[in-house]
């Protein structure tokens, strides 16, 4: 088995692709890459289309290498990755809907994002076809057996959450199969980005998933900077990390409370909700927006941290340091709550590894991966933090990973505030000459976000693809719920907390 880097170098290397290499594959090397995925030597980081090309981002976890292979699709076809490596299935279905690229031999050719309402087919292909809206019924996978019944849920859910459809097949109380149908929030963001200037594309990137607006803006900005070869001032790099950790903190606090609430334990929800609100207010005081939206821009950050803002952040950290331990104790010592979370929604280690599941989903099932450490990016190489990993893979483990990450984020924020360098916070973007490509892998609160883009003529974004961690987590939720009772689904679902909007784009 060659190292990923040697494999890429052996191919026809594409110029001006940074920071990791991209190579044009032949059908033979494409198949070889699939084999490596199947055997578990490499992991799939993403798969996306262009009008006549399909790209696949690969991760070699041992060598800590990343690379992209691209295959030209003659007559719009390419050998399916999903045929042998299931994590690619939905990505291939999405590329088929958007570009009309057909994965040959794919076991599942049902449309995924295209529900038949757009009025066009293959909207991002060179030749877009208009099509009459046809909402043909979606064929769910069959389930057979005695006394099975189906429960359709969604797309409009009974709560303040995003839309998606869940089709349960249950035997009595026990879930035999869950099948998800997503795509309801598809807004065509990649289509809007193509041909936009960098400013507008950046704003769109920050609106892919509202809870990860910082992480998305950061991934987009880093990809642009990689493409254009821009060095960001160090104060901006540190401020970005501060924003990212505040976002992580707020989301994890919200999630811990909400998971407990789904086990009918409201007091945790109330206390965590109050802490979350304090973090959002501190973010507002520090940067001028509760969710810190539109404040990370290519070239730096758009908001300076003043003395008052730093004080607000320090005070919220002190407050959480004081209150959070009591909540952990409450979580850990309440038998009725543990009864719901321990052993529920178990995701096994092999599946987490096969799907390269990011974030707390992967780390609660033994996958020791965090983009802040590997491939790593500044300033995390200068900060002390630990990455918690558990093997149990149940709801409880996903709660504990979040608890540990809250603690780590508190420490990271303290370190950042203490060592924040001075200087400018933004540099101007150099004008691009000809096509340049860049990519980035950024750890959001939910897991690693992949950004890939090409900047073309006039400095406009020619193609930008952003892959949410949920692409590899949603299918695992289907596996984790199997054999659990229907009533535990909200609990399992919340413990995964996958993004709908980030996935549907």
């Amino acid at each position, binding site marked *: 088995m060659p190292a990923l880097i040697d494999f890429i170098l052996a191919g026809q290397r594409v110029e001006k692709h940074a920071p990791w290499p991209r190579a044009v594959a032949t059908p033979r090397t494409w198949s070889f890459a699939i084999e490596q995925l199947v055997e578990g030597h490499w992991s799939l980081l993403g798969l996306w289309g262009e009008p006549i090309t399909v790209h696949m981002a690969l991760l070699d976890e041992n060598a800590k290498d990343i690379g992209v292979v691209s295959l030209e699709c003659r007559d719009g076809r390419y050998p399916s990755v999903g045929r042998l490596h299931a994590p690619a299935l939905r990505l291939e279905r999405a590329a088929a809907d958007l570009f009309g690229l057909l994965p040959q031999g794919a076991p599942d050719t049902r449309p995924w994002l295209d*529900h038949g*309402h*757009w*009025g*066009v087919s293959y*909207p991002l292909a060179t030749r877009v076809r208009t099509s009459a809206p046809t*909402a043909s019924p979606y064929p769910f996978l069959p389930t057979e057996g005695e006394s099975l019944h189906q429960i359709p849920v969604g*797309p*409009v859910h*009974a*709560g*303040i*959450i*995003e*839309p998606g459809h869940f089709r349960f097949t249950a035997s009595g109380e026990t879930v035999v199969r869950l099948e998800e149908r997503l*795509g*309801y*929030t*598809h*807004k*065509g*963001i990649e*289509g*809007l980005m193509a041909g936009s200037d960098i400013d*507008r594309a950046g*704003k*769109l990137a920050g*609106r*892919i*998933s*509202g*809870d990860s*607006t910082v992480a998305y803006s950061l991934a987009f900005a880093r990809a642009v900077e990689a493409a254009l070869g821009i060095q960001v001032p160090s104060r901006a790099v540190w401020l970005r990390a501060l924003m990212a950790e505040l976002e992580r903190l707020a989301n994890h606090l*919200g999630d811990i409370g909400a998971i407990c609430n789904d086990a009918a334990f409201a*007091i945790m929800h*109330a*206390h965590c*909700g*109050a802490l*979350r*609100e304090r973090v*959002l207010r501190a973010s*507002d005081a520090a940067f001028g927006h*509760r*969710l810190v*939206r539109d404040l990370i821009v290519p070239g730096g950050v758009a908001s300076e941290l003043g003395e008052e803002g730093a004080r607000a952040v320090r005070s919220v950290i002190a407050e959480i340091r004081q209150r959070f331990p*009591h909540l952990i104790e*409450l979580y850990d*010592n*309440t038998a009725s709550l543990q009864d719901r979370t321990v052993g529920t929604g178990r995701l096994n280690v092999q599946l987490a590894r096969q799907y390269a599941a990011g974030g707390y989903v992967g780390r609660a099932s033994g996958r020791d991966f965090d983009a802040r450490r590997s491939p790593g990016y500044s300033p995390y190489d200068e900060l002390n933090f630990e990455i918690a990993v558990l093997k149990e893979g149940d709801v409880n483990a996903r709660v504990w990973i979040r608890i540990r990450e809250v603690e780590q984020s508190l420490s990271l924020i303290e370190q950042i505030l203490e060592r924040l360098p001075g200087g400018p916070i933004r540099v101007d973007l150099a004008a691009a000459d000809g096509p340049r490509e860049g990519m980035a892998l950024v750890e959001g609160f939910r897991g690693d976000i992949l950004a890939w883009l090409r900047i073309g003529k006039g400095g406009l974004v020619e193609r930008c693809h952003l892959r949410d961690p949920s692409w590899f987590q949603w299918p695992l939720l289907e596996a984790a719920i199997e054999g659990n009772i229907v009533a535990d689904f909200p609990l399992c679902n919340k413990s995964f907390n996958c*993004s*709908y*909007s980030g996935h549907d784009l």
Partner: protein
Amino acid sequence: MRKLLFESLIRPPLTERPPAASDTAVDELARALDGAAHKRLGRSLSIRAVDAGSCNGCELEMNALSNAFYDIERFGIRFVASPRHADVLLVTGPVTKNMREALKRTYDATPNPKWVVALGDCARNGGCFAGSYAVLRGVSEALPVDLHIPGCPPPPIEILKGLLALLEGVNSKSGPRS
């Protein structure tokens, strides 16, 4: 747990004073609502949230309304699970074409009298998503909208102001809905 509960008794509440209803929203509503609604609703308002393709930012801030700082239920405003129980549909997102049918069905399932509030900048006219093959230009392309609350996302206090305006609008006798 006992300690936490006891502390809650002796610590001052986190809940903040209610904001004044948003003036512009009151004006907007005065035209939209009639006195009959007042008699039916009293001082309570049941809201069904429908995400019609938002980025989830508006949902986060809507959820925040239930935390101790805003405590939205003290105003008689509740989020309900079914459109059958709702007076108001609070709709977010530019309305994706994939969600249009579900949104319409939710509206049809809501009993009269009912109001539609569009929440967030993209719910007004599609915002930064306008022009995409996959979205409409805001909620008003799918449903009649009574009130719009701007922001990306609107902070909880702004949502609260808008909803209070809706309540006041319902409670003040104004001309019938044209």
